[in-house]
């Protein structure tokens, strides 16, 4: 019997992943033979200088883009083989997203945005799911904003709504791409604290792309990417340690 990613305690895995854009002399290698596994329940940060392939890696792991070579799994599902509609359903049920900006559907209020993944699935949240959503709404301080539209909220509040939506379906994995990129540093810290808490308290697996050492210091594990390759796999680190390593990487480049 073959060993499945889940047998190794992994929630997601990629093997020998390659991604090239374009062809011929103008081709760009965004990912070059990347293999890694994300552990269940962990908050993983993916770091690297601009252009190192962080977003590309995340897009492939989330089934938003397909690799040029290699494979990617979510749980035990090989997502590199799935059709567009199967990937759509997978995103609906098993993945949550928090983006840098433009996270919310402008025509829906806070409740509508949080409920959207359920509605897309054509169902109402079950009793225990509803309790979970209520808990999230309270924990994220959104109770008195529940009927507001996104444009009536501050950037930090919008990001909290996005987090609530991402966690609402208790997905296998939440992807966050520079979730604090558009926030001031205090609001940014708050949002990071919430993500870290979701992982620590509820065992939510999270993969966060960032180039901010302070953001990465909230994570359990930090993967460093440079020129499309994993160059370091570190445990929890302080912002200073991360900065030092990043600076060293820049100098080496």
């Amino acid at each position, binding site marked *: 019997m073959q060993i499945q990613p889940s047998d190794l305690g992994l929630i997601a895995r990629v093997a020998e992943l390659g991604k090239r854009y374009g062809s011929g002399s103008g081709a760009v290698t965004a990912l070059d033979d990347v293999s890694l596994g994300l552990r269940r329940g962990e908050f993983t940060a993916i770091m690297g200088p601009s252009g190192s392939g962080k977003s590309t890696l995340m897009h492939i792991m989330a089934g938003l883009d397909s690799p040029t070579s290699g494979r990617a799994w979510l749980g035990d599902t090989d997502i590199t083989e799935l059709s567009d509609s199967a990937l759509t359903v997978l995103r609906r049920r098993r993945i949550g997203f928090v983006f840098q*900006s*433009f996270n919310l559907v402008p*025509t829906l209020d806070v409740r509508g945005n949080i409920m959207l993944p359920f509605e897309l699935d054509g169902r109402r949240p079950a009793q225990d799911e509803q309790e979970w959503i209520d808990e999230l709404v309270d924990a994220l301080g959104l109770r008195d904003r529940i009927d507001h539209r996104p*444009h009536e909220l501050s950037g930090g509040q919008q990001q909290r709504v996005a987090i609530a939506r991402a966690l609402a379906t208790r997905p296998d994995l939440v992807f966050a*791409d520079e979730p604090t990129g558009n926030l001031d540093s205090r609001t940014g810290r708050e949002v990071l604290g919430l993500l870290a808490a979701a992982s620590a308290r509820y065992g939510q697996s999270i993969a966060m792309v960032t180039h901010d050492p302070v953001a990465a210091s909230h994570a359990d594990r930090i993967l460093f990417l440079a020129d499309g390759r994993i160059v370091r796999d570190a445990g929890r680190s302080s912002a200073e340690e991360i900065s030092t390593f990043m600076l060293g990487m820049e100098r080496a480049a």
Partner: protein
Amino acid sequence: MRATFAGQWPTLLVAALAGTFGTALLHVTGVLAVAIAADDVTGESDTVALLLGIVATVFIVIAVYVSSVVTANTVSTVVAGRTRLIALLRLIGSSARSQRAQIAREGLLVGVAGAAIGVVVGTGVAFALDRVAVATDLMPATDYGYANPWVALPAVAVVLTTWLASWVGSRRVLKVRPIQAIGNANEHDREELGGRRGRNITALVFFVIGTALLVLGVALGLVSPFGVLIGLVGGIVSFTGIVLGADVVMPPVLRRVGRVFGRTPAARLAAENAVRHPERSARMTIGLVIGVTLVTTFSVTMASYHELILAAQRAQPEVYQGVDEMLNVTVAVFTVLIGFSALIAAIGMVNTLSLSVMQRTRELGLLRALGFDRRQLRGMIVAESAALTLAATLTGVVLGFGYGWAGAQALLGSAQGTPALVVPGIPWALFGGLLVAAAVLTIVASIAPARRAMRVSPVVALAVE
């Protein structure tokens, strides 16, 4: 500058259509006038030719008016979608006035091009119609020379109105603040609402005064057919009020219509999209409302007249012999002529829907990332298109029915010697036609945007600007 001209194709199309319509109609009336002058029976009187001229002018004015409303709305939509670019240019030192002047200049050029195309194509169409009519013995050959100087008039009107409409449509450029270029990447969801209240009050005043005049016209119509003239003025004034207040009138209609499509996420988002910017939905639909109202008003008035004629015919068959057929032909011809304005308005809706979908690329990407599949996205766009079309058509039919009945009452209330209530004729054929047209428009308007929406990759929602 190519980027700026790219958004001008719809305006060029609308200007060219209006120009073609005006030119062709003038040539055709010219040909008819020559034919009538040559005829032994009717040749004596100039009245027929004069009447033809007046009728042609009315239809050309309507078409040019509708096309300038459409153009102004297209320009505003383009400008709204370019807010960030405009803000960036403002940021690096370009003045709002010069940017607006630039848009108006483009409008002038597009107007000239459209008018030129219109003169050429319109002359060709009229010539072809002339030949076909002669070949099928519908009409004797005439020596009408196509160098008719009057044709310059619709051409000039198209140039001026396109220019003016671009100017009016670009006024929101003045409201773009340079800071919007560096604000966060969230879509600017609220359009500026400045000057709304003033316009709404004007709209209300127009509507009230117009309605009062309309009522007066109907009352007068009980004793004299001249009541219709006052009624006509009242109708124009009150309808202007409705057009001005479109962003108050249309959203509630859209909201009701939107409920028809059910509660699926796609339908709900479509309904919300249709009303999210009152100004934008008003812009998208008002041209079509004008077109449908005109067609319906005319048809209801004529149908009422027809009923009256039928009644008279039953009483005195000899006197009214052949009237029926003539009336039908007249109604058909006029409906087609007004229908052309409705067509221009429909093109306007196709444009604005397409533009507004293009401007929502990131939002569509977000929906894809969250788990909307392609079919749901397409369903959303089709439902949005259907909501806009249905709302505009229904509003137009209701208004047109009211105006048409009022017109018939004012015109015919005294026709039987004693004051009488006129039963409104119901133009079933027209309603059927409108229903089919609305369905076709819904599909046509949603093809391009739906295809584009289905191609949107979920990755665009994550892209950092």
